[in-house]
């Protein structure tokens, strides 16, 4: 290794460590705060004298997190299943078929990525109310699916476009129908991208706060992040307990990512390598 390469490596590592620190410090801070004795004033820079792991049990029971988790699980799983299914169908059509108006239609989908939820929330609220869906999981699921499909179609189109066209053509000659080509050839080919999409959609849906706050009125239908808001309102001075609640809420997403990280990274790289 010559001097220039060595210096470059040092700079690269220094930058990576710096950004890792920026990303991980708040998470570390929240976790440390969550194990301070209940009612004490935590510090992110200092470990507590003893670890109060019991805070998690207290937060779970007192914050009704089992109820919020149930809501979140119902919403997130439904959103993942519906959004992934629709995104695969949309992405397959845009990525493998030539049809009139496909460009216009695709850019219409992309609009969903550009327009923020905050811009449409008021009209959305009235629409949902007119459908008698306020304070239902259905409302949350429908609105979140519509948002997730915008990104999902964009993502799956790119994944299917990276498949060699000859694969589709070989399958057509082999006698496969459009539907069979999707099931038997393209979905297995795009599986890493589909898994990545599922992880991203799950994380997005699980962390959704704003919609749950606006579209639900009872605690029964609140999702975990919105429930955490209610919980932190009750224990406004008890930082360790609030931090324990935050850790509980964040845990499922972290676990899903840890379980699927290899496939997630492969999925992200699929488009990057094949262009």
């Amino acid at each position, binding site marked *: 290794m010559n001097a220039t390469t060595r210096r470059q490596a040092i700079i690269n590592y220094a930058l990576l460590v710096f950004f890792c620190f920026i990303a991980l410090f708040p998470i570390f801070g929240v976790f440390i705060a969550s194990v301070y004795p209940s009612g004490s004033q935590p510090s992110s820079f200092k470990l507590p004298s003893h670890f109060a792991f019991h805070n998690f049990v207290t937060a779970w029971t007192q914050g009704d997190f089992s109820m919020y988790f149930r809501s979140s699980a119902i919403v997130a799983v439904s959103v993942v299943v519906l959004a992934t299914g629709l995104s695969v169908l949309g992405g397959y059509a845009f990525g493998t078929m030539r049809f009139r108006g496909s460009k216009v239609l695709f850019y219409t989908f992309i609009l969903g990525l550009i327009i923020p939820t905050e811009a449409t929330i008021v009209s959305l609220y009235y629409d949902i109310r007119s459908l008698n869906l306020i304070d239902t999981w259905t409302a949350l699921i429908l609105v979140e699916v519509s948002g997730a499909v915008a990104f999902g179609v964009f993502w799956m189109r790119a994944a299917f476009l990276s498949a*060699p066209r*000859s*694969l589709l*053509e*070989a*399958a*057509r*000659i*082999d*006698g*496969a129908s459009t539907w*069979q080509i999707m099931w*038997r*050839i393209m979905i*297995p*080919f795009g*599986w890493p991208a589909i898994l990545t999409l599922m992880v991203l959609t799950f994380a997005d849906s699980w962390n959704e706060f704003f919609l749950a706050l606006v579209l639900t009125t009872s605690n029964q239908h609140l999702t975990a992040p919105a429930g955490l808001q209610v919980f932190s309102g009750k224990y406004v001075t008890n930082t360790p307990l609030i931090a324990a609640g935050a850790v509980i809420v964040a845990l499922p997403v972290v676990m899903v990512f840890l379980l699927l990280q290899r496939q997630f990274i492969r999925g992200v790289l699929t488009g990057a390598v094949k262009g």
Partner: protein
Amino acid sequence: MATVEFRKVTKHFDEVSALSEFSLDIHDGEFMVFVGPSGSGKTTALRLVAGLEAITSGEILIGEREVNRVAPRDRDIAMVFQDYALYPQMTVEQNMAFGLKMRKTPKAEIARRVQETAATLGIEELLQRKPRALSGGQRQRAALGRAMVRQPEVFLMDEPLSNLDAKLRVQTRSEIKQLHKQVGNTTVYVTHDQVEAMTMGDRVAVMSEGVLAQVGDARSVYEEPANVFVAGFIGSPSMAFVTMNVTRADGTAILSRGEVRLETAARVLLPDEVIVGVRPEHARIWHEGADLVGPVNGTVEYVEMLGRETLIGVGLPGGARLVAQAAPDLLIDVGGSVAIGIEPGRMYLFDPATERSMGRL
């Protein structure tokens, strides 16, 4: 088995014409090679037979049936792609069985045919491997196997050897030819490699800019090129061309260009100007008493020692060039002068206006 017939087939991609009024009969059981440079329309013609592109006008018949609007899966064809297009998530066995499964062939029959085809190709031990675990040559065989197992009426092959190294390519092309002899299916094979075309094809269709330039067996295409394009494209090294003036006198034709002057018996009727084409193997170092037309004096521009022979690039006065073939032990310096003679009857003549062949002198 079946014939394949193109009847005035035209294909446009938006404003670009990829194939123009293309007509050709491919006989039952024939190995037909489409050869031509990039953009000549050879792959388009193949894809039209496969049904992967729609015809703009004209008709394609497989057997007696017009297939213009028939879906690829109903054409009873199989295709080997340039990149092999093996399904990456499936084993070789599953790849081979896929087409039969889609056609609802009974399981026992699928297993029997896959085993039989694998044995023919010598790929039994590869059946449980996925494409990523195969070398280029093995992938090529697996792709051939996938096509063969279907026992289609027509085989279509789109430059299937172009991703193989030179040695494997030579080996595989003779194997494909051998397989064709065994199976006997009508085969349409696309390549840009004229050596591949000449060695494999029962007949060769030379294509240029979407038009069929000439069709015939390898010998006729080589010996009697229909035009300047075919003469230049077929043969390696290429035929050299020189435009010359013609003077006729007493049954003799004198071809001249600047200081270059060739006198030969006028066996064909010639206009005032012709394009003269000479293949390297017909141009040799001049020596007195040789049965050659010439001499033509020029300067040695380059010398290529190929082992079995030596090629000499000769610059003629006035800027024209010839390539001559010489014995491998010939010692000659670049920049020196050299006299070349041409075998009688081996000067190919073309009309400068139409570039069509006018025979040989």
